[in-house]
């Protein structure tokens, strides 16, 4: 039997465990009832039969899954969304790293202000943020007015209702999240380590890549994970800023569910994306460690 250096301050099993569990119960019930049960419901529904009338019969069938896996359309849609999410994540990481690093260079008081400022846009509803691109990118929008007026272009550029505007909108939406996560990761780097590297002969750039970047990696990884997950589930931005050809997985689910009223198929589609994300999470966990993710998500 080991001797414990008991951590003072914790009440252990028996010392008020009842109080602990009663405090946790409402939260646990909420998650169980409003998150876990829905996912299970999705599972059940995906195996039920949809009659041509549109009603759902609780008869077991694998028809939905066979359609889903058989028709390459769905796989294609998933893949297309994946590409979008990857592109958006990459862009956010590239564009966001600079500002995140810049914040760490500032004195502490300025830092707080800048982080707040950076977060300000994210308090604005994402519907508003998405639609705010419309007057800018439209044929008679701000950009085209300026470009046309200054003679740089002969006709209006098609900046809107295509993949370009969707990616733009999503990057704008997800950038603050990425920046904050990278910033948190960078904060974990002790300045003294960088100094040590430089006294040992490394240039600024070398010290960055050898010391700072690796240690700050969990922040970037967490940012990428969150950004990717949110991008995969993108519905509003493609809906507002997209056009023909910019329908992604979430739009597909919406279509299937609402327009086609095919609930079982919609359920199956939803499950697929969950599996996919869980797989991504497991992969991330292997690569970066689950505990670091939770440390970074906490702000």
């Amino acid at each position, binding site marked *: *039997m*080991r*001797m*414990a*250096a*008991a951590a003072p*301050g914790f009440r252990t099993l*028996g010392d008020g465990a009842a109080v602990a569990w009663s405090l946790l119960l409402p939260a646990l019930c909420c998650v169980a009832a409003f998150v876990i049960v829905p996912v299970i419901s999705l599972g059940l529904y995906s195996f039920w039969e949809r009659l041509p009338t549109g009603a759902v019969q609780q008869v077991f069938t694998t028809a939905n899954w066979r359609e889903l896996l058989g028709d390459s359309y769905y796989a294609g849609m998933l893949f297309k969304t994946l590409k979008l999410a990857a592109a958006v994540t990459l862009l956010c990481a590239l564009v966001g790293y600079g500002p995140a690093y810049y914040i760490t260079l500032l004195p502490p008081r300025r830092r707080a202000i800048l982080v707040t400022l950076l977060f300000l846009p994210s308090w604005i509803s994402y519907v508003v943020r998405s639609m705010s691109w419309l007057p800018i990118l439209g044929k008679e929008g701000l950009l085209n007015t300026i470009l046309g007026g200054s003679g740089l272009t002969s006709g209006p550029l098609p900046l809107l209702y295509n993949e370009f505007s969707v990616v733009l909108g999503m990057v704008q939406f997800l950038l603050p999240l990425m920046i904050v996560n990278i910033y948190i990761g960078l904060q974990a780097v002790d300045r003294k380590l960088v100094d040590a590297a430089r006294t040992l002969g490394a240039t600024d750039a070398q010290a960055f890549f050898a010391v700072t970047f690796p240690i700050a990696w969990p922040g970037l990884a967490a940012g990428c994970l969150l950004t990717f997950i949110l991008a995969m589930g993108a519905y509003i931005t493609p809906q507002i800023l997209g056009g023909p050809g910019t329908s992604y997985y979430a739009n597909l689910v919406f279509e299937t569910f609402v327009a086609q009223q095919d609930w079982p198929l919609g359920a199956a589609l939803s499950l697929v994306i969950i599996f996919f994300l869980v797989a991504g999470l497991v992969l991330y966990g292997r690569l970066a460690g689950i505990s670091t993710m939770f440390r970074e998500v906490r702000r």
Partner: protein
Amino acid sequence: MSAANVVLRGIEKRYGGVIAVAGIDLSIAAGEFVALLGPSGCGKTTTLRMIAGLEEPTGGDILVNGRRINDIGVHQRNFGMVFQDHALFPHMTAFDNIAFGLKYRKVPRPDIQRKVRQALDIVRLPHVGERLPRELSGGQQQRVALARAIVIDPDLLLFDEPLSALDANLREEMRIELKRIHRTVGITTVFVTHDQGEALSMADRVVLMHDGRIDQEGAPEQLYRSPNTEFAARFFGHVNELGGTATAPGLVRIDDGTLVPASGLNLAPGTPVRLLFRTERARVVPVGPADPSTATVQGTVESSDYMGMMVRYVVDLGGRQVIVTQAVGDRQYRVGEAVCVKIPADAWMTF
């Protein structure tokens, strides 16, 4: 102030399969200053917290003035506690911090004023009442924490390593302060520390703990001069070790061949023996003849550190190094010089 006596009977604390405190029996007399001393993980803090009521013993009884208090809640025990990081409420002034306990005892307003002023006077901080904790220095914070604990007229004062977070000079000062306050106020005190100097200088009685049990307890000199276990011996000061074999009662031949008198040692000839001695019991002297009542071992000075009143020599005795501290005499020994180390026959500790 009513000081209480405390009795711990068979106190045990388990966390699942892990035993933090393995059965403690201890009696503390009213007004006594007892130090719970030991390395981290020995169970001293857990024991203190059990007395306070912040942890529940999984076995045993705690009795205060003869009454079993195991089932009495923390807030009803009336013990004052001072924590390692002062644990002052950061959003309240020093005055409000100290008054906190009085409010829960429904002490009327004018009395609160008076008592808080009194407590601040005892800790010699009469003017800091309106300051917030973050506006006070480390020493001041700790003293306000002490005032907060005393003002409620506790039956017992519990200290959980209160000086560890302070720097060395401040610690010295606070030690003296605490002793003075204890003499003035006379409350039974249990003081947890890992610092042997603190325990020896402050306590009426030292309780040395190890792996969840009491290793030895007694007055400071007793523990220092007559340790019962090797653990106790090594815990205080620095201890040198020499190996050898017993040859006759009271006589040991140590590894380099020298015959060494060791009073009180009665082992069968040929038994291997480890001889321990404290640095200040030995003396470095010039090479000279041996003398039957004192061990005289030859060696070379490895280093000498001048420490003001004392000098510390590291002497190489044929492969084994020993440390000797002695007063700076007329003679100083240089590095590389051949010397003898003399150890009186009664300085040896064996276990």
